[in-house]
């Protein structure tokens, strides 16, 4: 393995962007940002900028995609060509986008009351406008708000956050540099209402105890992000109701 010229944690224990190991990047939400979508929300998490839109429930065409006893979910995670420094040439979805669309959909399946809307589809679109690490987590977090904004009945809100290992230390909410140069990345999605994990992935190298530490830290991050979601939705309600 080549030596990493980048030191990701300095002598004071601070990371490349000045954060402590267990610190989240600054997060802001805006809810109801799109006119046409039934529900929408926008997140800025550090330098990530992601927008989510929800349409539905509505009838499905072609009909053979629909299910007789429940709504189907159609989920698209997509990165804008200008979201990363090397502009993407092909509009076709990458293998990564295909995989992430699937894991995000699977994270949302158990929390939406799909059985209330047979023969319909609920469409969830996540567009990454600017990427800086942790986009699948931020995308899932903001999609959850868009679903609530659309009035789709949910078992609860979903918050997602990654933990990882950087310069030998377990840290929370990796940015792009930390993800690329670090030793491990563990994205997790969590629903506080049910106390369940909905998305779990890991790549890198972790020992058994590091794995345990990282997953606990990620869950802690999810809980903090959930508080921010709650605050954003409440403020939205208050501003709308006068």
């Amino acid at each position, binding site marked *: 393995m080549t030596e990493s010229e980048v030191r990701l944690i300095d002598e004071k224990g601070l990371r490349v962007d000045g954060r402590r190991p267990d610190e989240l990047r600054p997060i802001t939400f805006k809810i109801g940002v799109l006119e046409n979508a039934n529900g929408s929300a926008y997140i800025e998490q550090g330098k990530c900028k992601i927008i989510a839109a929800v349409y539905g429930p509505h009838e499905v065409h072609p009909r053979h995609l629909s299910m007789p006893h429940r709504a*189907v979910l159609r*989920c698209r995670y997509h990165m804008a060509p200008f979201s990363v420094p090397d502009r993407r040439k092909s509009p076709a979805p990458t293998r990564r986008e*295909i995989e992430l669309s699937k894991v995000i959909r*699977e994270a949302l399946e158990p929390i939406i009351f799909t059985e209330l809307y047979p023969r319909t589809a609920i469409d969830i679109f996540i567009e990454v406008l600017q990427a800086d690490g942790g986009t699948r987590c931020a995308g899932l977090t903001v999609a959850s708000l868009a679903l609530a904004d659309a009035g789709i009945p949910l078992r609860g809100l979903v918050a997602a956050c990654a933990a990882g290992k950087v310069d030998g230390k377990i840290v929370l909410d990796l940015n792009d540099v930390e993800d690329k140069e670090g030793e491990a990345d563990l994205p997790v999605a969590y*629903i506080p209402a049910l106390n*369940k994990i909905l998305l779990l992935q890991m790549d890198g190298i*972790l*020992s058994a105890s590091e*794995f*345990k530490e990282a997953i606990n830290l990620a869950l802690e991050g999810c809980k903090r992000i959930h508080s921010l979601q709650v605050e954003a939705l409440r403020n939205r309600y208050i501003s709308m109701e006068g």
Partner: protein
Amino acid sequence: MSVTPQRSVISRILMEDIKRLAEQGKRVDGRSFKEYRPINVITDYAKKADGSALVELGTTKVLVGVKIQVGTPFSDTPDKGILTVNAEFLPLASESFEPGPPNEDAISLARYVDRGLRESDALDFSSLVISPGEWVYMVMVDVYVLDHGGNLIDASTLAALSALATTKLPIYELTDNGVEKTDETRPLRLTHRPLSITFAVLGDNLLLDPNINEENAIGTLLSYTIFDNEHICACQKFGPNPLSLDMVLEGFETACEKYKTLLDLLYREAILNGE
């Protein structure tokens, strides 16, 4: 766009049986929750490939072929070889597999197998360089699913590791106008041995190595790729069922135990050299 898949039709009776037995700690085929089905590994199966292995795991059959090519390295890793993993769910393997380019399931599987090999640095990519910045070895791993009997993940990683362990790397030489293949080969050096251990997630229970009925009835898998001594290099939940933290940590422990079982099998078959 990812769309909720149509469920395979599975008889309600079978589904009830699986659930009822699981409550008593049992499974329909008589195995315990932590037992693998019979495993058979045949290396050097596809003679035209540089390396190959056919794995039979219960009724699941997966063939992995390894082809070695040469090419230019990626600009950000000029001194490392290249690995690509592709998976094909052949239509002959299951009624639910349609002909066409790999769908999201095949892509997810390929990427998961890839992560296990890549993150553990199993192939010692620095040793796959012919001329830094110009010519490196490209290891193409093709996962061919021939018969879907459940748990394609473990069958695939086992076949991939076995194929790589027995691959004969054709040696290329630098010449004045590029590279030339010599007649010599050398074994591919494996610095680590990543293997996945996969469970079906049924409520609060983890069922190791689900067969096709269990997989169709339950719909969600949790996989850990373990290498060396209780280290993990990849982990993923496939499917919608939610997990509890305790279950995830317990699953890790069981995965580490079963990793040893799988390694022992590969030593016995002389696919890997015991330590």
